[in-house]
């Protein structure tokens, strides 16, 4: 933690000398300067691309090493001895190596003979120099000797099995070789019929993988692999003896072609990229982009190869040319995908008949120039939609100032989608390529079933792990990642209870009934129509989950037990079950508390109207603004309206009974007042003196109370009015906006009036000018996104439970959450609190607060220039701005809300905690656990603290909010004072008062950590600098004087003071560390 104290970026001034700045430009320099703006958008992008390319490209030095290695490997493989003939079913000759092919059915005709390869060629991205440095995959294509082949090898998986056993034999041979450290198998592109060998070399190259593919020496005839042809016989596969139906086998055919077309495609790409280095760079950038979005993972993914072929296609249709920069190529690439539709209008060739034939058999069509093979054969339509959507959002992001980072740097893991449904491995065993063949029907069912409830439905296909050569290959139910669907809900319709279908007598009605099954029923609607419809009898937010379960069970036969959902489990954290505590008081609410907020808002609006209509005031109230988080639904646990209360002791003030807290009696329940600020119409007769202003405001409060007394119980104090309406306590205060100026103004000696900020004026401005502004802006966000409030509440609950209460104020959290909702790129706006919270954790743990400000753009008002201006101002004034700097429309240059915290140390701790919590939550979500219980993330670790102060829970009125709280069973001794119109104890939280006292006395010595939501511990952490001896002066406090005239903290008496200050509240004090012993 110490190291953070003096961490600041050293900003060097970029100053060129006069002669450097004004020397005559060379031609080259001129073109360079102009080119940057025309080809890259800006200098910055050009330089950034240069940097990122240097980071992701494979260096020349490394290529030399790899090339050397490949030569020696080539010699080894060429020298593999031949083997005599066996049958294809006999795997004994493979020795310890398990046959890397799931044989289903087991029996197949044909013989296998191994002859040394004819040739070995380097193919793929390594050869083209478009590979990425991070995981170097070198593809070697082994040309199998024609002697191994037989007639009819293309039939019934014979070629694939032959290929697998050929590669397995090579793997066995390589296994013992000195050149090789590890040999594994994996499925190429997660196709279970195409195992490849992974060879890992020894040390200097151990991060690279060499993949061995195989192909026949003589090409098969192309006509046999048209999508409509049959190459796997029904009777063989089902081991039946019926009449052969000759079903087309498009997928199988495509796979057969892949091996033999590898080389021709490589040649094409090679020609395109020759003398066109920007082409290669563009491929690298796009690959990075795909990787960040995990679009290149799983079965039928959008691989880097597809991207390269697409660029080649763009080159042939003149969408790009070789004068373009990589930035422009990438832009055009996004543009092309975003506007394309390969589901109906495939691309790649001009031959309409060929395209049509492919469309008949594949969902997504992108064929090669001669119409031989479909690159997107396995791609589910949903995945293509996802790619298109990502391209579209990246295209818009590229034009924004922070776009580069969003598109290429920021990692966008799959989990941060809106709603996830995973299908796990407990499915009924039906054999074969079950998952692959089900994807289409499942996604159709989901898309149809959810209809307008979703905006976008994405799919993340399953994938398999590598396996060792001594293990059996994984079958379809041993996937490493489950098939998962991500749903981007449409907030307007997603939670509708009713699914209205076609009218009963129409032709579609039968279809509708078929699809929905028994849950479909006839209903009469208000307009008199009688329609088929489905009514979901569950709570609004559960509807999408229920739809998914029902639809998948009915149309695909997948039982709900095989599904796992990640939806709203995180909202459990902000529910507070309604219960009655001692003396009949009620805490908590049913549901998530949204209802409390709705009623509170309604009361507030009525109150505001009453205030505006007040008659007896000399000036009318023009503006009423509620500033409490409750009104924007961002208070963790809003105080519910109270009912009859039985009070312990009351006093009477100005005719109103007030409950008071009395030591020795039970603690009154916690009531958080709703803060309301009123301002009056303008007038010239306000005094210009702070003391007089204070009294005049009090006079207004008295006048308001006098008029409102008959309507509501209310009392006034010097600076506010407490008022009860509908069971809510409102704290109303009068505001005079010019008071800020009054505080700022002072006269210099020369008699000049100067306006300068003072500590008090800044504080006041924040409270009476900026807070109302911010409240209304945040209220706007709350109304735009209905999950925003819940997201803020969950986030605050998390921060509090990490014992960081008081270090980060409510407004900062609200602003950070609104940033996540307002600038979601590269994602979409979160649709549920869970997604919002996950994004928050991800954002906090990864965002570089040190060198970037958080710019919250309410109402989309800021232009690119504005944002650039904010960034430059931020960078030049970094040292004077707080660790988390949040600018918004109203505060473009300063960050008033985060000045009081978090400090650098706290920010660092928050980042660490966020990372840990995120890992825990993702583990729960992807672990496909049935019972996701996020409450476990709320357990704070106490190991970091030096002293732990334990408090007596009887006097903690908020103890009920804690997870750990267990109510004691005891008889509610009836208290005789029942009081209906009595003002409850407002805003009285001994824990908070104790912390305030501690901070006032010991803030130089220690930091205090606590949880306002019912925690009963205070963690104390000594500041690292606290124990250095300091010279004595009159303001030295809580210390003892040493012989040498320096002072050091007097820890025993400080600990004693902890006890004395918290007399009656402190239970015990544990000293954990003895860091203070000097």
């Amino acid at each position, binding site marked *: 933690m110490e190291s953070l104290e003096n961490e600041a970026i050293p900003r060097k001034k970029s100053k060129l000398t006069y002669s450097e*700045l004004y020397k005559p430009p060379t031609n080259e320099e001129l073109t360079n300067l102009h080119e940057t703006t025309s080809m890259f958008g800006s200098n910055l992008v050009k330089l950034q691309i240069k940097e990122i390319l240097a980071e992701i490209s494979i260096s020349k030095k490394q290529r030399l090493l790899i090339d050397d290695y490949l030569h020696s490997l080539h010699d080894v493989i060429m020298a593999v001895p031949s083997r005599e003939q066996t049958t294809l079913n006999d795997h004994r000759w493979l020795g310890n190596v398990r046959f890397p092919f799931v044989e289903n059915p087991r029996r197949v005709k044909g013989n296998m003979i191994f002859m040394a390869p004819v040739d070995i060629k380097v193919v793929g991205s390594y050869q083209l120099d478009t590979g990425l440095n991070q995981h170097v995959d070198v593809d070697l294509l082994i040309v199998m000797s024609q002697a191994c082949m037989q007639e009819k090898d293309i039939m019934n998986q014979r070629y694939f099995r032959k290929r697998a056993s050929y590669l397995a034999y090579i793997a066995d041979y390589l296994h013992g070789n000195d050149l090789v450290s590890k040999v594994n198998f994996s499925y190429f592109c997660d196709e279970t019929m195409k195992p490849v060998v992974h060879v890992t070399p020894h040390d200097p190259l151990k991060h690279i993988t060499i993949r061995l593919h195989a192909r026949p020496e003589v090409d098969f005839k192309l006509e046999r692999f048209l999508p409509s042809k049959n190459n796997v016989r029904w009777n063989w596969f089902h081991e039946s003896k019926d009449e052969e139906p000759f079903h087309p086998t498009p997928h199988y055919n495509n796979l057969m072609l892949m091996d033999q077309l590898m080389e021709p495609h490589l040649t094409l790409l090679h020609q395109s990229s020759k003398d066109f280095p920007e082409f290669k760079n563009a491929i690298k950038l796009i690959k990075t982009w795909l990787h960040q979005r995990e679009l290149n993972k799983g079965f039928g993914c959008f691989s880097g190869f597809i991207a390269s072929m697409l660029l080649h296609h763009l080159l042939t249709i003149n969408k790009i040319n070789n004068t373009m920069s990589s930035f422009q190529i990438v832009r055009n690439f996004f543009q092309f995908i975003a506007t394309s539709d390969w589901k109906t209008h495939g691309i790649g060739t001009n031959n309409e008949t060929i395209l049509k034939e492919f469309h008949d058999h594949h969902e997504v069509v992108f064929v090669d120039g001669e119409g031989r093979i479909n690159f997107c054969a396995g791609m589910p339509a949903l995945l293509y939609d996802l790619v298109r959507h990502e391209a579209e959002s990246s295209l818009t992001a590229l034009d924004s100032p922070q776009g580069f980072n969003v598109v290429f740097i920021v990692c966008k893991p799959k989990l941060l989608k809106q709603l996830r449904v995973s299908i796990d491995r407990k499915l009924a065993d039906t054999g074969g390529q079950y998952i692959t063949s089900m994807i289409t029907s499942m996604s159709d069912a989901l898309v149809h079933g959810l209809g307008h409830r979703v905006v976008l439905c994405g799919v993340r296909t399953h994938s398999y792990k590598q396996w060792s050569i001594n293990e059996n290959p994984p079958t379809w139910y041993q996937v490493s990642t489950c098939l998962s669907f991500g749903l981007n809900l449409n907030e307007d319709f997603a939670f509708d209870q009713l699914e209205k279908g076609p009218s009963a007598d129409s032709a579609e009605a039968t279809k509708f009934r078929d699809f929905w099954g028994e849950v479909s029923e006839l209903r009469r609607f208000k307009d008199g129509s009688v329609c088929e419809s489905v009514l979901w009898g569950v709570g609004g937010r559960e509807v999408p989950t229920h739809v998914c379960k029902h639809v998948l069970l009915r149309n695909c036969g997948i039982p709900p037990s095989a599904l796992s959902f990640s939806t709203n489990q995180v909202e459990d954290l902000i529910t507070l079950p309604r219960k009655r505590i001692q003396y009949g008081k009620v805490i908590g609410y049913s549901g998530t508390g949204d209802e409390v907020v709705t009623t509170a808002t309604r009361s507030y609006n009525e109150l505001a109207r009453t205030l505006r209509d007040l008659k007896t005031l000399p000036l009318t109230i023009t503006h009423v603004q509620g500033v409490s988080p409750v009104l924007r639904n961002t208070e963790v646990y809003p105080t519910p309206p109270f009912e009859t209360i039985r009070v312990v002791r009351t006093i009477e003030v*100005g005719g109103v009974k007030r409950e008071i807290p009395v030591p020795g009696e039970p603690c009154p329940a916690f009531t958080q007042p709703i803060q309301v600020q009123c301002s009056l119409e303008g007038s010239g007769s306000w*005094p210009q003196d702070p003391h007089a202003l204070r009294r005049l405001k009090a*006079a207004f409060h008295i006048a308001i109370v006098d008029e409102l007394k008959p309507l509501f119980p209310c009392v006034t104090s010097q600076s506010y009015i407490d008022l009860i309406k509908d069971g809510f306590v409102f704290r109303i205060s009068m505001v005079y906006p010019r008071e800020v100026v009054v505080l700022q103004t002072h006269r210099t000696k020369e008699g000049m009036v100067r306006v300068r900020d003072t500590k008090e004026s800044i504080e006041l401005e924040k409270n009476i000018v900026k807070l109302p502004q911010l409240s209304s802006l945040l209220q706007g966000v709350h109304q735009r996104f209905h999950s925003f409030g819940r997201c803020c509440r969950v986030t605050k609950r998390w921060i509090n439970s990490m014992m960081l209460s008081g270090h980060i104020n409510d407004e900062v959290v609200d602003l950070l959450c609104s940033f996540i909702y307002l600038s979601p790129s590269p994602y979409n706006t979160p649709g549920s609190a869970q997604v919002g919270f996950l994004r928050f954790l991800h954002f906090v743990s990864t965002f570089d607060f040190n060198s970037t400000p958080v710019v919250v753009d309410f109402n989309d008002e800021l232009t690119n220039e504005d944002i650039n201006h904010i960034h430059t101002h931020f960078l030049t004034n970094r040292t004077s701005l707080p660790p988390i700097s949040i600018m918004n429309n109203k505060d473009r240059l300063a960050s008033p809300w985060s000045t009081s915290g978090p400090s650098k140390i706290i920010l660092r701790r928050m980042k660490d905690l966020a990372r840990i919590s995120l890992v825990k939550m993702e583990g729960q979500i992807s672990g496909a656990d049935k019972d996701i219980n996020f409450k476990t993330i709320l357990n704070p670790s106490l190991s970091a603290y030096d002293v732990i102060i334990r408090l007596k829970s009887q006097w903690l009125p908020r103890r009920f909010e804690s997870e750990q709280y267990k109510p004691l069973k005891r008889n509610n001794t009836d208290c005789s004072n029942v009081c209906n119109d009595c003002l409850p104890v407002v805003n009285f939280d001994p824990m908070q008062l104790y912390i305030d006292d501690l901070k*006032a*006395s010991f803030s130089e010595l220690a930091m205090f950590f606590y949880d306002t939501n019912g925690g009963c511990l205070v963690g104390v952490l000594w500041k690292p600098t606290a124990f250095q001896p300091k010279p004595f002066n009159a*303001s030295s406090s809580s210390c003892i*004087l040493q012989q040498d005239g320096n002072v050091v903290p007097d820890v025993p*008496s400080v600990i004693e003071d902890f006890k004395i200050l918290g*007399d009656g509240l402190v239970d015990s004090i544990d000293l954990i560390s003895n860091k203070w012993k000097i």
Partner: protein
Amino acid sequence: MENQNNKVYQLKIKAHASCSSCHTLFITNKSKLNEHVLLVSNIPPYCNQHTLHRLFGKCGNLLEVRVQKHENKPINDDQTSDNFPPPQILGYKVAFITFQSNKGINEFIKKTKSTDPWLISNESTKLITGLRRWCLDYIHEQPDPDKLKLEVDEYMNKYDAKVKQEQEEEIANDGIPDDEGWVKVSSRGRNAGVSRTETNQKKSKRKEKKKRKQNDMFSIYKYQIRESKRQKIAELREKFEEDKLRIQAMKEARKFRPF
């Protein structure tokens, strides 16, 4: 006796008889010719004016006990009253204790010789801290509305009268030269002066600058055009250099690690 004023006396105090550790008060003699003042620092948060009065009253008659947060920051409390109290002094504080005569100070110095800690609470005067204090504070926060109203009215009447009097004086003195013959310019009358504020001063300066700028002419001579072109290139270069620095900073922050 020269350095008597710089000597730091230490006084041990205890909150209760049962407390195991003591607090140390640091006391310096700040006496001037006719003032017999001790500056007490490191006073714990629960020690208030009354406690100090009781403790130091043992040494002699006290004239004043003034409690402050810091040594040199006197609080301006002439505008406060029971209903509008000054902000509470929280945490550790210092106090100036004025004795009637030098006797008290000598008595005090004598007493510091013994090492026995002084008790700041006993059976009759208990410390009010923690829960008891918070509850009391909560009750005190609520003033009596009638008294509050009375005080506010009284104060505002006085204030209004004061303002009125000032105004009348100003009007009465308008245009009348003072002893040295200067006339004060006021905001009233036909020749009202501009009020002397910083904003006004800045405004007039800005106006002047604008005027001067309007008189300049550009793009007339060849050299001016050439100059502006040169300027443009220089700007581009400067921007380029700045961007390079930014990239450097990003590189240091390891921003170019996409994986």
